[in-house]
Protein backbone atom coordinates (compact mmCIF):
# COMPACT_ATOMS: atom_id res chain seq x y z
CA UNK A 1 0.00 0.00 0.00
CA UNK A 2 2.70 2.40 1.07
CA UNK A 3 4.85 1.51 -1.97
CA UNK A 4 1.94 2.08 -4.35
CA UNK A 5 1.23 5.45 -2.75
CA UNK A 6 4.89 6.39 -3.07
CA UNK A 7 4.80 5.46 -6.76
CA UNK A 8 1.70 7.64 -7.33
CA UNK A 9 3.35 10.44 -5.33
CA UNK A 10 6.51 10.26 -7.45
CA UNK A 11 4.45 10.16 -10.67
CA UNK A 12 2.53 13.29 -9.57
CA UNK A 13 5.78 15.12 -8.78
CA UNK A 14 7.03 14.13 -12.25
CA UNK A 15 3.84 15.52 -13.86
CA UNK A 16 4.25 18.82 -11.98
CA UNK A 17 7.91 18.99 -13.07
CA UNK A 18 6.89 18.31 -16.69
CA UNK A 19 4.29 21.11 -16.53
CA UNK A 20 7.00 23.42 -15.15
CA UNK A 21 9.37 22.45 -17.99
CA UNK A 22 6.60 22.84 -20.57
CA UNK A 23 6.01 26.35 -19.16
CA UNK A 24 9.73 27.11 -19.36
CA UNK A 25 9.70 25.96 -23.00
CA UNK A 26 6.72 28.24 -23.73
CA UNK A 27 8.64 31.09 -22.10
CA UNK A 28 11.69 30.38 -24.30
CA UNK A 29 9.52 30.45 -27.46
CA UNK A 30 7.97 33.70 -26.22
CA UNK A 31 11.35 35.40 -25.60
CA UNK A 32 12.86 34.13 -28.86
CA UNK A 33 9.89 35.60 -30.74
CA UNK A 34 10.50 38.93 -28.98
CA UNK A 35 14.22 38.64 -29.80
CA UNK A 36 13.11 38.81 -33.45
CA UNK A 37 10.06 41.10 -33.24
CA UNK A 38 11.58 43.83 -31.04
CA UNK A 39 14.63 44.57 -33.27
CA UNK A 40 12.46 44.38 -36.41
CA UNK A 41 10.03 46.86 -34.81
CA UNK A 42 12.88 49.16 -33.80
CA UNK A 43 14.38 49.14 -37.30
CA UNK A 44 10.99 49.75 -38.93
CA UNK A 45 10.39 52.66 -36.50
CA UNK A 46 13.74 54.11 -37.54
CA UNK A 47 12.94 53.71 -41.26
CA UNK A 48 9.57 55.43 -40.77
CA UNK A 49 11.23 58.35 -38.95
CA UNK A 50 13.90 58.60 -41.70
CA UNK A 51 11.28 58.69 -44.49
CA UNK A 52 8.55 60.82 -42.87
CA UNK A 53 10.43 62.74 -40.19
CA UNK A 54 9.17 63.24 -36.60
CA UNK A 55 5.52 64.31 -36.91
CA UNK A 56 2.08 63.17 -35.72
CA UNK A 57 1.48 60.89 -38.75
CA UNK A 58 4.80 59.11 -38.15
CA UNK A 59 3.86 58.59 -34.50
CA UNK A 60 0.50 57.08 -35.47
CA UNK A 61 2.16 54.85 -38.09
CA UNK A 62 4.80 53.67 -35.59
CA UNK A 63 2.12 52.76 -33.03
CA UNK A 64 0.09 50.99 -35.76
CA UNK A 65 3.17 49.06 -36.85
CA UNK A 66 3.85 47.91 -33.26
CA UNK A 67 0.20 46.90 -32.97
CA UNK A 68 0.53 44.76 -36.13
CA UNK A 69 3.76 43.21 -34.84
CA UNK A 70 2.05 42.31 -31.55
CA UNK A 71 -0.82 40.66 -33.49
CA UNK A 72 1.78 38.71 -35.52
CA UNK A 73 3.47 37.61 -32.27
CA UNK A 74 0.14 36.51 -30.82
CA UNK A 75 -0.73 34.55 -34.01
CA UNK A 76 2.73 32.92 -34.08
CA UNK A 77 2.33 31.80 -30.45
CA UNK A 78 -1.13 30.46 -31.21
CA UNK A 79 0.13 28.64 -34.33
CA UNK A 80 2.88 26.98 -32.29
CA UNK A 81 0.37 25.97 -29.62
CA UNK A 82 2.25 27.87 -26.94
CA UNK A 83 -0.01 29.70 -24.57
CA UNK A 84 1.53 32.80 -23.02
CA UNK A 85 -0.88 32.28 -20.12
CA UNK A 86 1.30 29.53 -18.70
CA UNK A 87 3.83 32.23 -17.85
CA UNK A 88 1.25 33.78 -15.58
CA UNK A 89 -0.68 30.83 -14.25
CA UNK A 90 2.19 28.69 -13.11
CA UNK A 91 1.98 28.01 -9.35
CA UNK A 92 -1.37 29.80 -9.08
CA UNK A 93 -4.69 28.81 -7.62
CA UNK A 94 -8.27 29.27 -8.75
CA UNK A 95 -8.89 32.32 -6.54
CA UNK A 96 -6.35 34.25 -8.63
CA UNK A 97 -8.48 34.16 -11.81
CA UNK A 98 -9.99 37.62 -11.33
CA UNK A 99 -6.65 39.05 -10.22
CA UNK A 100 -4.97 37.60 -13.34
CA UNK A 101 -7.52 39.38 -15.55
CA UNK A 102 -6.86 42.69 -13.75
CA UNK A 103 -3.10 42.26 -13.93
CA UNK A 104 -3.27 41.46 -17.67
CA UNK A 105 -5.29 44.67 -18.19
CA UNK A 106 -2.81 46.69 -16.12
CA UNK A 107 0.11 45.22 -18.10
CA UNK A 108 -1.51 46.24 -21.39
CA UNK A 109 -2.10 49.75 -19.97
CA UNK A 110 1.55 50.05 -18.92
CA UNK A 111 2.77 49.25 -22.45
CA UNK A 112 0.20 51.55 -24.12
CA UNK A 113 1.12 54.47 -21.81
CA UNK A 114 4.88 53.97 -22.17
CA UNK A 115 4.75 53.68 -25.98
CA UNK A 116 2.46 56.72 -26.21
CA UNK A 117 4.98 58.64 -24.07
CA UNK A 118 7.76 57.54 -26.43
CA UNK A 119 5.79 58.64 -29.52
CA UNK A 120 4.96 62.03 -27.95
CA UNK A 121 8.62 62.54 -26.95
CA UNK A 122 9.79 61.61 -30.47
CA UNK A 123 7.37 64.10 -32.03
CA UNK A 124 8.08 67.09 -29.75
CA UNK A 125 11.88 66.69 -29.71
CA UNK A 126 13.64 69.16 -32.04
CA UNK A 127 15.86 66.43 -33.54
CA UNK A 128 17.55 68.88 -35.90
CA UNK A 129 19.46 70.10 -32.79
CA UNK A 130 22.18 67.44 -32.53
CA UNK A 131 22.03 66.78 -28.76
CA UNK A 132 18.25 66.25 -28.85
CA UNK A 133 18.80 63.32 -31.22
CA UNK A 134 19.78 61.32 -28.18
CA UNK A 135 16.20 61.37 -26.84
CA UNK A 136 14.04 59.18 -29.20
CA UNK A 137 16.25 56.00 -29.39
CA UNK A 138 17.27 56.26 -25.71
CA UNK A 139 13.64 56.80 -24.73
CA UNK A 140 12.63 53.68 -26.68
CA UNK A 141 15.29 51.65 -24.86
CA UNK A 142 14.17 53.02 -21.48
CA UNK A 143 10.49 52.41 -22.38
CA UNK A 144 11.15 48.70 -23.06
CA UNK A 145 13.31 48.35 -19.91
CA UNK A 146 10.85 50.22 -17.69
CA UNK A 147 7.87 48.30 -19.15
CA UNK A 148 9.58 45.03 -18.25
CA UNK A 149 10.49 46.35 -14.80
CA UNK A 150 6.90 47.44 -14.08
CA UNK A 151 5.57 44.07 -15.27
CA UNK A 152 8.07 42.26 -13.03
CA UNK A 153 6.99 44.40 -10.04
CA UNK A 154 3.26 44.00 -10.82
CA UNK A 155 3.54 40.19 -11.05
CA UNK A 156 5.41 40.17 -7.74
CA UNK A 157 3.00 42.50 -5.98
CA UNK A 158 -0.38 41.21 -7.19
CA UNK A 159 0.32 37.53 -7.90
CA UNK A 160 3.39 36.81 -5.79
CA UNK A 161 5.29 35.51 -8.83
CA UNK A 162 9.01 36.22 -9.12
CA UNK A 163 9.85 35.96 -12.80
CA UNK A 164 13.60 36.09 -12.40
CA UNK A 165 14.20 35.79 -16.15
CA UNK A 166 12.63 39.25 -16.67
CA UNK A 167 15.44 40.64 -14.48
CA UNK A 168 17.88 39.53 -17.21
CA UNK A 169 15.95 41.60 -19.81
CA UNK A 170 15.76 44.63 -17.47
CA UNK A 171 19.42 44.58 -16.42
CA UNK A 172 20.70 44.05 -20.00
CA UNK A 173 18.56 46.91 -21.31
CA UNK A 174 19.43 49.40 -18.53
CA UNK A 175 23.14 48.54 -18.69
CA UNK A 176 23.29 48.95 -22.48
CA UNK A 177 21.14 52.14 -22.64
CA UNK A 178 24.24 54.43 -22.51
CA UNK A 179 25.61 52.70 -25.64
CA UNK A 180 22.31 53.45 -27.43
CA UNK A 181 22.57 57.07 -26.21
CA UNK A 182 26.16 57.38 -27.46
CA UNK A 183 25.27 55.92 -30.86
CA UNK A 184 22.29 58.34 -31.07
CA UNK A 185 24.65 61.28 -30.55
CA UNK A 186 26.49 60.26 -33.70
CA UNK A 187 23.24 59.83 -35.62
CA UNK A 188 19.66 59.17 -34.46
CA UNK A 189 19.23 56.26 -36.88
CA UNK A 190 22.49 54.69 -35.72
CA UNK A 191 20.98 54.89 -32.23
CA UNK A 192 17.87 53.00 -33.41
CA UNK A 193 20.06 50.32 -35.04
CA UNK A 194 22.09 49.85 -31.86
CA UNK A 195 18.83 49.70 -29.89
CA UNK A 196 17.58 46.95 -32.24
CA UNK A 197 20.73 44.94 -31.49
CA UNK A 198 20.50 45.65 -27.74
CA UNK A 199 16.85 44.66 -27.40
CA UNK A 200 17.39 41.50 -29.50
CA UNK A 201 20.37 40.60 -27.33
CA UNK A 202 18.46 41.17 -24.08
CA UNK A 203 15.59 38.85 -25.09
CA UNK A 204 18.09 36.29 -26.38
CA UNK A 205 19.88 36.36 -22.99
CA UNK A 206 16.50 35.89 -21.29
CA UNK A 207 15.71 32.87 -23.50
CA UNK A 208 19.13 31.40 -22.66
CA UNK A 209 18.47 31.94 -18.95
CA UNK A 210 15.22 29.95 -19.28
CA UNK A 211 17.00 27.26 -21.32
CA UNK A 212 19.31 26.89 -18.35
CA UNK A 213 16.30 25.60 -16.31
CA UNK A 214 15.65 22.85 -18.84
CA UNK A 215 19.34 21.86 -19.03
CA UNK A 216 19.55 21.83 -15.23
CA UNK A 217 16.68 19.36 -15.11
CA UNK A 218 18.00 17.16 -17.94
CA UNK A 219 21.63 16.99 -16.77
CA UNK A 220 21.49 17.44 -13.00
CA UNK A 221 18.08 16.84 -11.40
CA UNK A 222 16.87 13.97 -13.55
Amino acid at each position, binding site marked *: *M*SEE*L*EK*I*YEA*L*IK*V*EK*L*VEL*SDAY*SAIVNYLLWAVIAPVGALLSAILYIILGPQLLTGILVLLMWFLLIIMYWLALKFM*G*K*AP*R*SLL*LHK*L*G*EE*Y*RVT*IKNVKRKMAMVWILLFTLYVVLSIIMPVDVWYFRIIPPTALCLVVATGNLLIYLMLRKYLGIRRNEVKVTIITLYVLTPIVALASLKDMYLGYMVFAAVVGLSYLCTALYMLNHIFKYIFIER
Partner: protein
Amino acid sequence: MEVKIPKDDMLGNPTRLSIMLHLLIVNRATFSDLQKTLNLTPGNLDSHLRKLEKAGFIRIKKGIVGLKPRTIIMITDEGYIRTLNYIRSIRETIEKVLSTIEPKQ
Protein backbone atom coordinates in the same frame (compact mmCIF):
# COMPACT_ATOMS: atom_id res chain seq x y z
CA MET B 1 -5.30 13.46 11.45
CA GLU B 2 -7.97 14.26 8.89
CA VAL B 3 -7.14 13.39 5.30
CA LYS B 4 -9.44 15.06 2.82
CA ILE B 5 -9.64 13.40 -0.58
CA PRO B 6 -10.07 16.07 -3.29
CA LYS B 7 -13.37 15.77 -5.17
CA ASP B 8 -13.95 16.89 -8.73
CA ASP B 9 -16.78 15.59 -10.91
CA MET B 10 -14.81 16.19 -14.10
CA LEU B 11 -11.32 15.07 -13.07
CA GLY B 12 -12.53 12.23 -10.81
CA ASN B 13 -12.91 10.18 -14.00
CA PRO B 14 -9.55 8.54 -14.94
CA THR B 15 -10.05 8.99 -18.72
CA ARG B 16 -10.86 12.69 -18.37
CA LEU B 17 -7.96 13.13 -15.94
CA SER B 18 -5.54 11.53 -18.42
CA ILE B 19 -6.86 13.75 -21.25
CA MET B 20 -6.32 16.83 -19.07
CA LEU B 21 -2.86 15.70 -17.89
CA HIS B 22 -1.80 15.24 -21.51
CA LEU B 23 -3.14 18.69 -22.47
CA LEU B 24 -1.56 20.27 -19.38
CA ILE B 25 1.86 19.43 -20.79
CA VAL B 26 1.35 19.86 -24.55
CA ASN B 27 -1.21 22.74 -24.38
CA ARG B 28 -3.04 21.50 -27.48
CA ALA B 29 -3.44 18.26 -29.44
CA THR B 30 -5.35 16.86 -32.38
CA PHE B 31 -8.21 14.40 -31.86
CA SER B 32 -6.25 11.57 -33.51
CA ASP B 33 -3.13 12.28 -31.40
CA LEU B 34 -5.16 12.08 -28.20
CA GLN B 35 -6.87 8.92 -29.40
CA LYS B 36 -3.53 7.21 -30.17
CA THR B 37 -1.74 8.41 -27.02
CA LEU B 38 -4.52 7.45 -24.63
CA ASN B 39 -5.62 4.36 -26.58
CA LEU B 40 -9.31 5.31 -26.67
CA THR B 41 -12.09 4.63 -29.19
CA PRO B 42 -13.29 7.70 -31.15
CA GLY B 43 -16.76 7.51 -29.55
CA ASN B 44 -15.39 7.25 -26.02
CA LEU B 45 -12.91 10.11 -26.52
CA ASP B 46 -15.59 12.26 -28.16
CA SER B 47 -18.04 11.85 -25.27
CA HIS B 48 -15.37 12.77 -22.67
CA LEU B 49 -14.21 15.75 -24.74
CA ARG B 50 -17.80 17.05 -24.99
CA LYS B 51 -18.15 16.86 -21.20
CA LEU B 52 -14.82 18.65 -20.65
CA GLU B 53 -15.78 21.31 -23.20
CA LYS B 54 -19.15 21.86 -21.51
CA ALA B 55 -17.37 22.30 -18.16
CA GLY B 56 -15.04 24.89 -19.75
CA PHE B 57 -11.86 22.82 -19.32
CA ILE B 58 -11.04 22.66 -23.03
CA ARG B 59 -11.87 24.35 -26.33
CA ILE B 60 -12.52 22.30 -29.47
CA LYS B 61 -12.09 23.79 -32.93
CA LYS B 62 -11.67 22.61 -36.49
CA GLY B 63 -8.34 23.54 -38.01
CA ILE B 64 -5.87 22.65 -40.74
CA VAL B 65 -2.78 20.65 -39.71
CA GLY B 66 -0.41 19.61 -42.51
CA LEU B 67 -2.96 20.57 -45.21
CA LYS B 68 -5.56 18.21 -43.70
CA PRO B 69 -8.64 19.23 -41.71
CA ARG B 70 -8.24 18.19 -38.07
CA THR B 71 -10.08 18.60 -34.79
CA ILE B 72 -7.84 20.55 -32.42
CA ILE B 73 -8.30 20.40 -28.67
CA MET B 74 -6.86 23.20 -26.52
CA ILE B 75 -6.69 23.52 -22.75
CA THR B 76 -8.33 26.66 -21.34
CA ASP B 77 -7.06 28.80 -18.41
CA GLU B 78 -9.83 27.29 -16.30
CA GLY B 79 -8.78 23.73 -17.27
CA TYR B 80 -5.12 24.53 -16.64
CA ILE B 81 -5.74 25.87 -13.13
CA ARG B 82 -8.29 23.21 -12.11
CA THR B 83 -6.15 20.27 -13.29
CA LEU B 84 -2.95 21.62 -11.76
CA ASN B 85 -4.75 22.28 -8.46
CA TYR B 86 -6.33 18.82 -8.56
CA ILE B 87 -3.04 16.96 -8.96
CA ARG B 88 -1.45 19.19 -6.32
CA SER B 89 -4.19 18.45 -3.84
CA ILE B 90 -3.88 14.69 -4.50
CA ARG B 91 -0.11 14.95 -4.03
CA GLU B 92 -0.56 16.84 -0.75
CA THR B 93 -3.10 14.25 0.44
CA ILE B 94 -0.69 11.40 -0.34
CA GLU B 95 2.08 13.35 1.40
CA LYS B 96 -0.05 13.51 4.56
CA VAL B 97 -0.91 9.80 4.35
CA LEU B 98 2.74 8.83 3.80
CA SER B 99 3.86 10.96 6.75
CA THR B 100 1.47 9.03 9.03
CA ILE B 101 2.56 5.61 7.68
CA GLU B 102 6.35 6.12 7.69
CA PRO B 103 6.96 6.68 11.44
CA LYS B 104 5.28 3.32 12.27
CA GLN B 105 7.71 1.34 10.09
